């Protein structure tokens, strides 16, 4: 159907987007790779020559590296666990017949639209402040010692904040998937006497597996690079320094660009491992 003429017009129409994205991807990537093999300290002598894989070795052997990997895993893993489990439960709940479904949906989705700096600061001050926060009032009301949320249990607190931001996303996607579930199948199982838990385990959960996978992959990509939530709450202190935050500090705070760039390459590799799985699913969907 398409003529030679329309094909070249199509190529011409695609060119700006393709060229821009190619530049956006390649130029910084090549620069990061280049810096990662250099000893480069902009404030202390600038470019001090090639160092081979020195930065890569130093990045993973520095004392801050493993704690940052641990913090990253806890934040990503904890948030995934909370958002997926509660997302499934909430999705099922919201799919039930009720009054005011539309309003409840809006209430549940709202946190997703709150800018990260706002949600982090509101939680940090108005809820988690050990003196004036709501949680402190609550703890005192029941006679307990208020918790120093962001210093004593900083990782848990950040997981709580980030989960609040991402629960709407998980819920919305899982709800959409639940809505496409064939209700007749569930009814048939119900009539055959299958108990609620079995119906959930053998019908609902398998049906949701693809949506859950997508939620996990997309959230992982975004969660690996959360920044503002840490920047305004702890500034990376109290064991909350993630890999992303460590790289940020190396590059912009201590201006050790070579070392930070090596860290950046690790982060890119890590993100790409997750991305490959996501792309496979999305790609399959494209054929259908």
């Amino acid at each position, binding site marked *: 159907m398409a003529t030679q003429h329309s094909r070249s017009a199509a190529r011409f129409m695609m060119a700006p987007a393709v060229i821009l994205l190619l530049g956006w991807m390649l130029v910084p990537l090549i620069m*990061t790779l280049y810096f990662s093999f250099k000893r480069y300290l902009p404030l202390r002598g600038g470019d001090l020559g090639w160092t081979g894989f020195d930065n890569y070795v130093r990045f993973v052997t520095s004392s801050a590296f493993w704690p940052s990997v641990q913090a990253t895993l806890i934040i990503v893993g904890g948030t995934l666990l909370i958002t997926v489990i509660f997302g499934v439960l909430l999705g099922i709940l919201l799919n*039930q017949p009720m*009054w005011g479904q539309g309003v409840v949906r809006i209430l*549940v989705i709202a*946190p997703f639209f709150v800018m990260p700096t706002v949600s982090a*600061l509101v*939680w940090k001050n*108005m809820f988690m402040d050990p003196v004036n926060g709501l949680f402190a009032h609550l703890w005192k009301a029941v006679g307990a010692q208020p918790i120093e949320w962001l210093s004593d249990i900083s990782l848990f607190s950040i997981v709580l904040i980030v989960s609040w931001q991402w629960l709407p996303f998980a819920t919305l996607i899982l709800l959409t*998937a639940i809505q496409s579930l064939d209700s007749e199948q569930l009814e048939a199982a119900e009539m055959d006497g299958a108990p609620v838990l079995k119906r959930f385990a053998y019908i609902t959960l398998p049906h949701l597996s693809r949506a859950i996978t997508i939620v996990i992959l997309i959230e992982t990509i975004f969660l690996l690079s959360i920044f503002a939530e840490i920047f305004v709450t702890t500034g990376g202190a109290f064991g909350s320094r993630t890999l*992303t935050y460590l790289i940020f500090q190396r590059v912009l705070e201590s201006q050790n660009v070579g070392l930070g760039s090596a860290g950046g390459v690790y982060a890119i590799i890590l993100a790409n491992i997750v991305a490959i799985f996501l792309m496979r699913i999305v790609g399959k969907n494209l054929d259908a």
Partner: protein
Amino acid sequence: MARTVTTNRKIINTAAAWAVGLLIFFPILWTILTSFKTEAVAVADPPVFLAFDWTLDNYRTVLERSNYARFLMNSIIIAGGATLLGLLIAIPAAWSMAFVPSRKTKDILLWMLSTKMLPAVGVLYPIYLIFIRLGLLDTRTGLIIVLMLMNLPIIVWMLYTYFKEIPGEILEAARMDGASLKDEILYVLTPMAIPGIASTMLLNFILAWNEAFWTLNLTAAKAAPLTAFIASYSSPEGLFFAKLSAASTMAIAPILILGWFSQKQLVSGLTFGAVK
């Protein structure tokens, strides 16, 4: 065929869903309420829920003290500019991929998506350096470009998904009726494409408005949008909960309203069409 639901069960569902919904919404509600309190009431123990003297002082203080208008303008210009520029570049691309697909279309789409997976921090210094060299640091132009590039894959994908659903036969029918290319675009395609373009615009405006990595790292006093303005409250002096709440409410209110309109497109937009 429909399952008969007992009223009892419906009442339980309603109560449970509303309880959870209000719990999740509570931090936002609390922020909005606190923005109308005095600083002393804002930290009162036990907390005051509704029975306080409502005041607009915090809004007045924030508006007077902090150049709020400039941060707001920066947010609007940056998010709006990035979205419009993105659409301008993405519409032709998505259009041609949807209507003149080739063997490479799928690969190109997936490759575009893959650029979205690049962690920003991995390229922080190069972008920072390029910005310094080109004098783009702390400029709205610079942020418009970066946020546009960041969201371009999502824009292309969303538009492609929408355009795909426009049936090609309609074009052929119009052509048979003697419509010129101009008529075709103006009277047949545009009306059908506008809803898709509008929802793409909405979602990407929201994403750009809330972006908080590049906006924090590439701006200072001049081009800082609301994300950075709010972040400046992270090391305050004295009592500030009510003022923080007022500033926060102003920063999120427009997006909450836009967001509620876009919730339908959110799922397919953010999962790249993998969940519909």
